[in-house]
C-alpha cells in the first residue's frame, strides 16, 4: 500500500465511526480479491464498484512475539494499493478469532488500525466465529471459522471484543453470520436472535452472508426466510453471495463458482428490506476462476448489479 496514495473512499469521521451505520455511503457491487483475479480486476474494473480483500492474505504472520509480527507481501499489497487509487477497498478479516474464549487476536486489531491509517476504509468486518483454542504445548489454530455457542456467555464475550475493536478503529465494524456443519444443542438464542442482541449491545453492523445462510439451510435445516424475518435488517451493511458444491452428503460453502438460484432468491428477498445496505460482494476462491471464467464472473456481477439497481430505490424509499 502506498501511504501517499489518495484514498478513494471517504474517511469516516469519529462521529460516524463504530455505531452510526446510517451515515455510510452505498458503494454498490463488490468483488472479493484473489491473486488469480488480478487480470480480471485490471481489465474489467467497470464490472464492480469496490474491491473487498481479506487483509490476512496480504501479509505473513510471523507469530506472537515477532517484531514486526506482520510482514507485508509486497506484490499483493502493491496491487491493492494500485486498485485503491480508483476504487474503494474494504477489508474483510479472518484473523480476529473474536469468539475464542481464552483470548482473541488483539494484535490483529492493531494491524488493522495501522492499515486504516494507510488506507482509510469505509468499514471492516470479520466472522462470528473462533479458530484459536488453547493447546498443549502450543495454541491451536484450527484454520477454519468454527461456530460459537449462542448463549449469554458468548454474547458477553463477543460484545466486549467488538467494543474493543470499535474503540481502536474509527470505522464501523461488521460481524458476519457464520457457516456451520453441526449445531450445538440447548442454545439460549437462535442465530438471528444472537446477532440482533449483538448489534443492539454494540451498534456494530452485520455482514449478511447469504451463501452461508443457504449452506446452513441445506445442511442444518435452517429456514432462511424465517431467519431473515427475525434478523434486524437495518443493521445489514454488506451482503455476500457465492457458490458451493456437493460433497459427501453435504453442501459446502466452497466459493467454487456461480451462486445457486436459492441464493439469488434470498438476495431479491432481502435487498429491498435493508435500508442501510452499502454493498453486495461476490466471493470466489481464485483456484475456481478458470472454471467459472471471466464471462461467468461477468454474469454473476451483472446479475448482482441488475438486482441492486432494481431494489435499491425501493429500499431507500422505504
Amino acid at each position, binding site marked *: 500500500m502506498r501511504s501517499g496514495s489518495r484514498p478513494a473512499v471517504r474517511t469516516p469521521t469519529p462521529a460516524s465511526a463504530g455505531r452510526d451505520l446510517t451515515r455510510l455511503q452505498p458503494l454498490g457491487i463488490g468483488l472479493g480479491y484473489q491473486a488469480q483475479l488480478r487480470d480480471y480486476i485490471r481489465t474489467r474494473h467497470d464490472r464492480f464498484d469496490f474491491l473487498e480483500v481479506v487483509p*490476512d492474505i496480504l501479509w*505473513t*504472520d*510471523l*507469530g506472537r512475539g*515477532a*517484531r*514486526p509480527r506482520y*510482514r507485508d*507481501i509486497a506484490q499483493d499489497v502493491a496491487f491493492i494499493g494500485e486498485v485503491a487509487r480508483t476504487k474503494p477497498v474494504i477489508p474483510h478479516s*479472518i*484473523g480476529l478469532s473474536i469468539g*475464542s*474464549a*481464552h483470548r482473541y487476536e488483539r494484535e490483529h486489531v492493531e494491524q488493522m488500525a495501522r492499515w486504516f491509517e494507510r488506507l482509510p476504509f469505509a468499514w471492516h468486518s470479520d466472522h462470528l466465529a*473462533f479458530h484459536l*483454542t*488453547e*493447546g498443549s504445548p*502450543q*495454541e*491451536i*489454530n*484450527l*484454520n*477454519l471459522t*468454527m461456530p460459537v*455457542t449462542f448463549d449469554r*456467555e*458468548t454474547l458477553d*464475550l463477543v460484545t466486549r471484543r467488538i467494543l474493543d475493536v470499535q474503540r481502536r478503529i474509527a470505522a464501523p465494524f461488521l460481524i458476519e453470520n457464520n457457516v*456451520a*456443519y*453441526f*449445531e*450445538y*444443542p*440447548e442454545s439460549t438464542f437462535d442465530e438471528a436472535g444472537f446477532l440482533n442482541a449483538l448489534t443492539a449491545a454494540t451498534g456494530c453492523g452485520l455482514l449478511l452472508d447469504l451463501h452461508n445462510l443457504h449452506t446452513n439451510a441445506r*445442511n*442444518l435445516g435452517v429456514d432462511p426466510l424465517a431467519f431473515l424475518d427475525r434478523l434486524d435488517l437495518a443493521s445489514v451493511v454488506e451482503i455476500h453471495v457465492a457458490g458451493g458444491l456437493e*460433497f*459427501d*452428503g*453435504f453442501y*459446502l460453502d466452497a466459493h467454487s463458482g456461480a451462486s445457486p438460484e436459492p441464493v439469488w432468491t434470498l438476495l431479491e428477498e432481502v435487498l429491498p428490506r435493508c435500508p442501510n445496505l452499502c454493498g453486495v460482494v461476490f466471493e470466489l476462491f481464485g483456484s475456481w476462476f478458470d472454471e467459472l471464467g471471466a464471462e461467468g464472473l461477468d454474469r454473476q456481477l451483472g446479475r448482482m448489479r441488475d438486482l441492486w439497481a432494481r431494489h435499491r430505490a425501493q429500499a431507500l424509499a422505504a
Partner: protein
Amino acid sequence: MTQANFQRVLGRLVTDRDFRARASLGAAGPRRGLSAIERRRLMAIAAAPGLALTARLIDSFRLGKLITLLPLTRALLGPVRFAAEAEAYCAKVPPVSFYLADEALAFCDHLKAACRRPYLAEVMSYERAMIELKRPRPDGAARPSQRVVFEHDPAVLLPLLARGERPRAVPRRRHVAIGFLGTDGVDWRIEGAFSSPRSGEVAEGRRGRRLRAFRRS
C-alpha cells in the same frame, strides 16, 4: 474458564481422529473443567457427521498448503501417497498457523521420519531450502544460505518432477548446491552441470561458480 475448556475439547474433536472416535462412542467423554451443558453439547456433536466433515475440511485446507509449497515432493511420492502422509501428519500434529511455510516445514519433519523412498531426502531438502530462503523473517533476522546435497543428478531429477513425471534410474551424481536469496529471487551456487526444472534449460558451470539458471520464483 469453562468456555475455554469447551473450545479446547472441541478443537481436539476436529483435529484428533482417535479422540473423536472415542468420544463419539461415549468412551472418552470429556469431563474435567466443563459445565454440565458444555458436556452435553460436546457429547451430542461428537458423533455428528458434520463434525467429522469439519475435521476433513481442516485437513483439506492443510493438505492444500502442503501441495502449494511441496509440489516436487508430491510429484515424487504421487498424489495418493502424499495425501496419505498428509493425513497421518495431520492426525499427529495439530494446526498452529494459517500460514504455509510453518506447516510445510513441519510436514517435512514428519516425512523425514515416516517415509523412505529413493530421491526423497534430496528433493525434500531442496524444497525445504526454497521455503527457508523465501519465508518472511523479522527485522534484523539473518537469512542463512541453504545447502542441499544431491546424490542424483538434479539436472535430470528436478525437471522430471517439475513435469509431474516419476523419476526412474536417475544417474548417481553428487552435487552440493548453495542457495541464497538474491534481489531477483533465489539463486544457487552449485557444483557441476545443473538445469532449471521449469524451463529445462541447462547451464554449465564449474565448481563454486555462481549460476543463475536454476531458479524458481
